[in-house]
């Protein structure tokens, strides 16, 4: 298996670091799947329970890398699946963050001390026109072929209603507060572009109304789903990207799907609904 990619555009480097940082904060471990055309970062909280949230980030290789080469497991299975442990990435991330002036960042799959690593070579300009190369090795685990099916690309969501979410900052804060009041909230969207989030306990009931939202798709007049606030709050707290557009899809009682869209990447958050007690 081989992988080698080189980034020379400072914006691409910055964006890539942002995504890597975000993904590794969202779960204890993160899977990186490399194909000939795309890179995928996958965080799934638990492999055993099918109803756990899934975070799926797709990056277009062509946008980020000026040079890109990969050779997968085999010609039939021409993909690479690596697993990162979040804490191992942290140190490299801080180094990468200050590499705003890096001339280039090369990422390679390597073997150091007979362990597979993802190696970052950061080429920094230095005082007297020389280059300074900073190398970080992040240990990774190769995911065996038999487990690849655990990370299947999720089906495209066919929502009952899909709306644009422009007020994400406010939504983040509302959810953060609501999580201190109750465990679950009900998300309700209408085809008129009204989204409401409600919690209700013995002591208090709180409803937030987002009106005049642009409706992307509507199969039904309205749709609602009950979700776990802690999970959504954790995700939103660590999501630090600056997407061009955020879309919220609801599948009645079953799913809340957030899609963060940008030219070069998309981040999807699948949060399964909870059946009301």
């Amino acid at each position, binding site marked *: 298996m081989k992988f080698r990619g080189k980034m020379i555009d400072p914006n691409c480097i910055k964006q890539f670091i942002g995504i890597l940082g975000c993904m590794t904060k969202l779960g204890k471990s993160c899977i990186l799947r490399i194909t000939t055309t795309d890179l995928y970062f996958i965080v799934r909280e638990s492999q055993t329970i099918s109803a756990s949230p899934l975070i799926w980030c797709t990056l277009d290789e062509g946008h980020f890398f000026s040079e890109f080469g990969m050779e997968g497991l085999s010609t039939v299975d021409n993909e690479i699946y690596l697993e990162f442990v979040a804490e191992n990435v942290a140190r490299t991330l801080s180094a990468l963050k200050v590499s705003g002036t890096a001339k280039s960042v090369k990422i390679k799959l390597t073997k150091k001390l007979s362990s597979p690593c993802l190696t970052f070579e950061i080429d920094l300009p230095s005082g007297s026109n020389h280059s300074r190369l900073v190398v970080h090795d992040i240990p990774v685990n190769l995911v065996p072929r038999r487990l690849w099916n655990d990370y299947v690309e999720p089906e495209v969501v066919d929502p009952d209603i899909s709306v644009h979410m422009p*007020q994400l*900052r*406010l939504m983040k*804060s*509302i959810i953060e*507060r*609501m999580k*201190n*009041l109750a465990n679950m909230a009900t998300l309700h969207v209408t085809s008129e572009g009204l989204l409401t989030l409600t919690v209700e306990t*013995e*002591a*208090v*009931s*709180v*409803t*937030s*109304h*987002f*009106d*005049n939202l642009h409706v992307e798709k509507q199969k039904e007049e309205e749709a609602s789903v009950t979700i776990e606030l802690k999970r959504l709050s954790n995700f939103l707290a660590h999501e630090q990207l600056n997407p061009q557009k955020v879309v919220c899809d609801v599948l009645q009682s079953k799913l809340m799907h957030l899609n963060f869209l940008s030219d070069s990447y998309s981040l999807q958050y699948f949060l399964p609904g909870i059946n009301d007690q």
Partner: protein
Amino acid sequence: MPNFSSQSTSGDQSHILMIRMDNAKIISHILKAINFKENSVFCCTKDGLKVTVEDMKSVQLNAFIEPVVFQSYVIKEEEIKFQLNLTVLLECLNVFGSNNLQSGTSPALKLYYNGHGTPVSILLEESGVITDCKIRTVHFDPVLDYDFGSANVIGRIIMSSECLKEVFCELDSTSDTVQFSLSPDSANFRITTFGHSGTYHVDIPKESDVIETLHCTSAVSFKYKLTLMKPSIKPLGIAQKVSLRIDDTGLVCFQFMIKVEDNHNCYIDFYCPADVDFEEDE
């Protein structure tokens, strides 16, 4: 777009209390400082809002917000009292974000109450997003009415709260009690702790810039449990000035003056009884 006023469950006629504010952060800034316990009793009169938080019938924090601080304050009864969970109220008031008074955003607030047995309704709006909260009220437990008539006051100090806060934050935490001593003969206001490593005195000279006024009819020296003093730290942190009064039973009353928008003042007072085991030292 849901009309702000159409959120009411019944017409405006049934509201016995109605408050409107352009910036809800002011009220949450004050109430956060008294939130050392969950339960709070609201007492509303034409003179404004008084919110009381009490611990075990001993220490008590009261926040006073006068009608002038609000954009609109309408009360249809002489006195309205109810009890609710202050922590829950603060979560609602801060639903749109950090409760930092300095940050750019300012959510608009409308609060109303229809009387005994009904919830307190709060409507908050920011950038077109409306949050509608209904907080359950319960019948209030009577709170201690500290009668602090000026006749009994022996010592009175008005000073900078920043200075007092510095002193309080550095008090020896291994000491069970803190002692305040004042006398007409001494040049200082003395604060003493008795910890494992020894007895520490902090002397603030009467003549210093941090003390605005100091009056003392006779020598006074009382000890207070350090843990009971803790709820005074938060209000001390947000106040500009503090006044301290001690009466002949050793009851101390701190009154904190807090400047808010448009140069208005809000007040928080804190009552703490003296530690009974101590024998007064003349």
